[in-house]
């Protein structure tokens, strides 16, 4: 398993993405799949950076592992308990004028990964997603 811990601020997105891409490239991950995973990494990390710690700041830990060409990415923060999967999916059939943008990020994560699970343990939010390469 590979682990990266960074301060959960949007400015660290590039560092997190580079960490994940390096891991995926070593597995000969197809470019299309890598872009899909990059998208999910951005949506999850930026959510933590924007909301987990309110006005304060804290760490986000990223864990990567792979078994039988299936990658597992885990994001851990110690912010306020929040289950992003509990949120209702956005209505994607509304006209532009009625569209709200909120919720699209986690919706994209659900669409692009094979599995996404959330749990709150020992004061930590733990979001785990997997995808077959």
């Amino acid at each position: 398993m590979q682990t990266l811990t960074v301060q959960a601020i949007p400015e660290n997105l590039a560092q997190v993405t580079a960490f994940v891409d390096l891991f995926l490239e070593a597995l000969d991950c197809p470019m299309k799949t890598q872009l899909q995973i990059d998208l999910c990494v951005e949506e999850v990390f930026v959510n933590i950076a924007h909301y987990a710690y309110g006005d304060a700041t804290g760490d986000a830990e990223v864990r990567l592992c792979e078994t039988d060409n299936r990658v597992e990415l885990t994001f851990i923060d110690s912010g306020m308990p929040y289950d992003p999967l509990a949120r209702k999916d956005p209505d994607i059939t509304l006209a532009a004028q009625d569209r709200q943008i909120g919720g699209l990020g986690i919706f994209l994560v659900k669409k692009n990964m094979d599995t996404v699970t959330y749990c709150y343990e020992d004061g930590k939010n733990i979001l785990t997603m997997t995808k077959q390469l």
Partner: protein
Amino acid sequence: MDIMTKNENGILTIELAGRLDTTSAPDLEKTITEQIPQAQTLVFDLAQLAYTSSAGLRIFLKAQKLMSQKGGAMKVLHVAEPIMEIFEMTGFTDILTIE
């Protein structure tokens, strides 16, 4: 991400190249906010855009709303496959005019 803009006779063309993400979306938002008031038609050329996240979708939606409010038109051209998949997944193919 690179943002190239051109305004000719009220037709504002914005070419995007690279990655439209949380980091680069504020630059695009600034561009559209500043330039849409002078445009009758807005054309996004996405031929060189490799990636967008929900941060980018938010800007496309905002641009569409701004253009609709002023009675203008907005078109999105040359959408590459990875971006088109995101548009399809989120129903943006129904709210944007993609050519």
